[in-house]
C-alpha cells in the first residue's frame, strides 16, 4: 500500500513538475512569439549613402541580430515641420514599443508624443531633451575626423585641406577642429580652409564649394554635408577626399582615402534587446570608437603603410578610451587657450563649441 501510494505521489509530483515546467516554459516563450515592434523616422529618403542610409543599415543590422524577436517599420522623408508629430504618433498608436527619431528637428514633436504615450519608449538622435520615456543618442563623429586629419596631414603636398560644411553648429565645428588638430599633429604647416554652403543637402553647391577649394590649392577635401558631390568632384579633379556618414568609395575609387562612418547597428540592437528584456531606461548616449558607433571605412591602397600604422595605433587608443582628440593645450585661432595643457575637454564644452582651433583659416560666420 505504502509503496503504491508513494508511487502515486511521485507520479503526481512528476506530473505537477512537468506541468509547471511546461507552463513556465510557455510563459518564457510567450514574449518571443509576438515580436517587439520598432519604428524609425527618417528625415530623407534612404538612398545609397549618407545620414539616413546609415540609420537604415543600423535598423537592418538590428533586425538581423534579433531575428523573429523584432519587427521594424520606417517612414522616410518626413519633414521636420508639422508632419513629424503625426508620423511619430501614428507609429506609437500602431504599437511600436520603441521609436527612434533620427533627426534634430524631431526633438520637440518626439517630446510631445512621448508625453501622450507614456507606455512607449522614444529615442531621439542628436538632440538634448530627455523624459521619463524619452532618451537621446548621438555619436562622437569628431573621433573619426581626427583620424582622417592625421591621414590628410601626412599625405597633403600643398598643405591646404578643404572642408565643405553645412552650418556652424557645435557638431560641425567639432569635426572641423578635430580634423585640423589631427592634421597639425603630424604636419604643423597644414591649414584647413572651410566653405559654408548653408545647406545639409545641396549637391550643386557642395560640388561648387569643393571645386573652389581645389582651385585654391587644396589637394585633399572633405565635407560635412549629406551628398557624395565632394568625393565625386575630387575624383574628377584627381585629388583626394574623405567621405562622411557612409563609405563613399564607389563614388570616387581613386579619390576616396577613407570615410568617417556612422555605425548605429550595435546601438539599436542593444536598445531593442533592453526593451525586450524590460530593462530599457531613458539614457543620453554619446558614443564613439569605444562603443562601436564610429568606424573608418577601409583605407585606400594609396595610403602609405606608415600612415596606416599610425591610424591603427590611434584607433586602438580611441577604443581603449586612452586618447581624446581635444586633449589640452587646445588653442583657438586667436591663440587663446581653450583647454589647458594636460586637461581633456569636457562634453559640455564640446556641446557649446563655437570657435575654430589653430590651423583653421578664415573667420567663423558671425552670429
Amino acid at each position, binding site marked *: 500500500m505504502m509503496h503504491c501510494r508513494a508511487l502515486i505521489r511521485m507520479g503526481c509530483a512528476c506530473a505537477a513538475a512537468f506541468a509547471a515546467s511546461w507552463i513556465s516554459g510557455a510563459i518564457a516563450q510567450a514574449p518571443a512569439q509576438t515580436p517587439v515592434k520598432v519604428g524609425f523616422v527618417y528625415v530623407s529618403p534612404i538612398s545609397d549613402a549618407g545620414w539616413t542610409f546609415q540609420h537604415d543599415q543600423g535598423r537592418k543590422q538590428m533586425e538581423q541580430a534579433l531575428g523573429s524577436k523584432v519587427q521594424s517599420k520606417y*517612414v522616410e522623408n518626413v519633414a521636420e*515641420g*508639422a508632419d513629424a508629430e*503625426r508620423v511619430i504618433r501614428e507609429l506609437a498608436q*500602431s504599437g511600436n514599443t520603441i521609436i527612434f527619431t533620427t533627426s534634430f528637428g524631431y526633438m520637440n514633436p518626439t517630446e510631445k508624443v512621448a508625453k501622450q504615450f507614456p507606455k512607449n519608449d522614444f529615442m531621439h538622435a542628436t*538632440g538634448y531633451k530627455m523624459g521619463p520615456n524619452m532618451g537621446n543618442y548621438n555619436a562622437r563623429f569628431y573621433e573619426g575626423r581626427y583620424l582622417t586629419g592625421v591621414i590628410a596631414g601626412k599625405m597633403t603636398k600643398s598643405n591646404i585641406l578643404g572642408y565643405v560644411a553645412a552650418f556652424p553648429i557645435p557638431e560641425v565645428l567639432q569635426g572641423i577642429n578635430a580634423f585640423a588638430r589631427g592634421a597639425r599633429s603630424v604636419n604643423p604647416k597644414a591649414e584647413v580652409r572651410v566653405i559654408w554652403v548653408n545647406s545639409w543637402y545641396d549637391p550643386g553647391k557642395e560640388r561648387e564649394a569643393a571645386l573652389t577649394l581645389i582651385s585654391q590649392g587644396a589637394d585633399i577635401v572633405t565635407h560635412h554635408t549629406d551628398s557624395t558631390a565632394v568625393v565625386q568632384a575630387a575624383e574628377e579633379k584627381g585629388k583626394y577626399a574623405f567621405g562622411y556618414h557612409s563609405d563613399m568609395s564607389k563614388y570616387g575609387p581613386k579619390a576616396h582615402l577613407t570615410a568617417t562612418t556612422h555605425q548605429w547597428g550595435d546601438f539599436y540592437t542593444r536598445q531593442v534587446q533592453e526593451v525586450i528584456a524590460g530593462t530599457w531606461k531613458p539614457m543620453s548616449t554619446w558614443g564613439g570608437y569605444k562603443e562601436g558607433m564610429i568606424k573608418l571605412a577601409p583605407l585606400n591602397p594609396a595610403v602609405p603603410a606608415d600612415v596606416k600604422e599610425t591610424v591603427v595605433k590611434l584607433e586602438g587608443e580611441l577604443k581603449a578610451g586612452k586618447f581624446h582628440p581635444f586633449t589640452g593645450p587646445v588653442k583657438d585661432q586667436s591663440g587663446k587657450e581653450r583647454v589647458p595643457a594636460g586637461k581633456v575637454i569636457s562634453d559640455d564644452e564640446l556641446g557649446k563649441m563655437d570657435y575654430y582651433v589653430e590651423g583653421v583659416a578664415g573667420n567663423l560666420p558671425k552670429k
Partner: protein
Amino acid sequence: MFKLEARPQASLAMRYASPAIAVVLMLIAGVVVFSALGRNPIEGFQVFFLNPMRDLNAVTELLLKATPLMLIAVGLAVGFRANVWNIGAEGQFLMGAVAATAVALAFQSSESALVLPTMVVAGAIGGALWAALPALLKTRFNANEILTSLMLVYIAQLAVSWLVFGPWRDPAGFNFPQTEMFSDAALLPMLIEGTRLNYAFILALGVLAAGYVFMERSYTGFKMRVAGESEAAARYAGYSAVTTIWIGLLAGGAAAGLAGMAEVAGPVGQLTDKISSGYGFAAIIVAFVGRLNPIGIFFASLLMALLYIGGEQAQQYLSLPASISKVFQGMLLFFLLGSDVFIQYRLRRSARQ
C-alpha cells in the same frame, strides 16, 4: 493620323467635372500601381485613401495639413485668374512666419489676449510685403513676376536661416537653429481638444469665403477676371493693369503670410529653418486642381493633404517607398491636364495624305 481639333464650345459642365474625372482615373491607375508593386490593390486603396479618414483624430490631421494649402491657394487664385503669376508663395509664407514670430518673441512674457490677433495681422502684412517686391518690380520696371517672386523664395529661406542661426536662436538650445517655444498666449487655441486642429482652419474657411465674394461678386474681382481673359479688353474698358497686378500679388502674399503665421503659432510652436514643408509650391497645384475657385480649392486641398498623409501610411503599413505620394500627385495632375485637353479639343482622324 490623328489631330486635335478645337471644340467650338467647350462644355462648362465638363470643365468643372474634369477634376472628378481625374481623381477617378488616378484611382484606376492606382490599382495598376499597387498591383505592379505586388500589393493587394484593395488593401493599398484602403491604407492610402481610407486610413487617413478612419477616425476623428485622423480627420483633424487631414484638415490640419490642408489648412495652409487652402489658405495659400485661394490667395494665389486671385492673382492667377488675372494672369498674375505669383510663384513665390513659399517665400511669402516664410516671411509671414517671420513677422508673426517677431511679435511672439517680443511679447514672450505677455499673457495678453491681443498677442495672437497681432500675430495674425503681422503674418498677413509680412507675406504681403514680400509679395509687394515683385509687384513693384513688375509695375515699375516690367520685370517678370514669375522670376522675381521665385527668386525671392531663396532670399526668404536664407533670411529665416540667418534669423534662427543668429539673433533669434534659443539661448538654451545648444546652438541649434530654432527660436524658443512660443508662450501659450502666442499659440492658436485648439478647435477640438486633444487634437492638433486649431482655429487656423476656421480662419482658412473665412478666407475662402472672402475669396469667393471678392472673385465672384465684386466689381474689382470682375475687372481682374476680364484682365485675365483678355488684356486688350481690360485696357479698352479702362481697367488699370497696375491695380490688377498689385491686388493679385498682395492677396497671394497676405494669404501665404497667414498660412506661415498659422504654422509657427500652430502645430510647430516656434520658428525653425524647416518651418515650411513646401506648402507654397504645393498650393500652386491645389489652386489649379481646384479650378481657381474657392469651393474647388477647398476640396483640392483636402485631396492633396490626403495624398501626403496616405503616402506616409503606405510607407508604414505597406512598406512602400516615400515617393508613392509623388507618384499619385503626378498622376492626378497628368489626368487633370489630360481631361482638360479633351474638354477643349477633340480627337479627329485626319485623312491620310
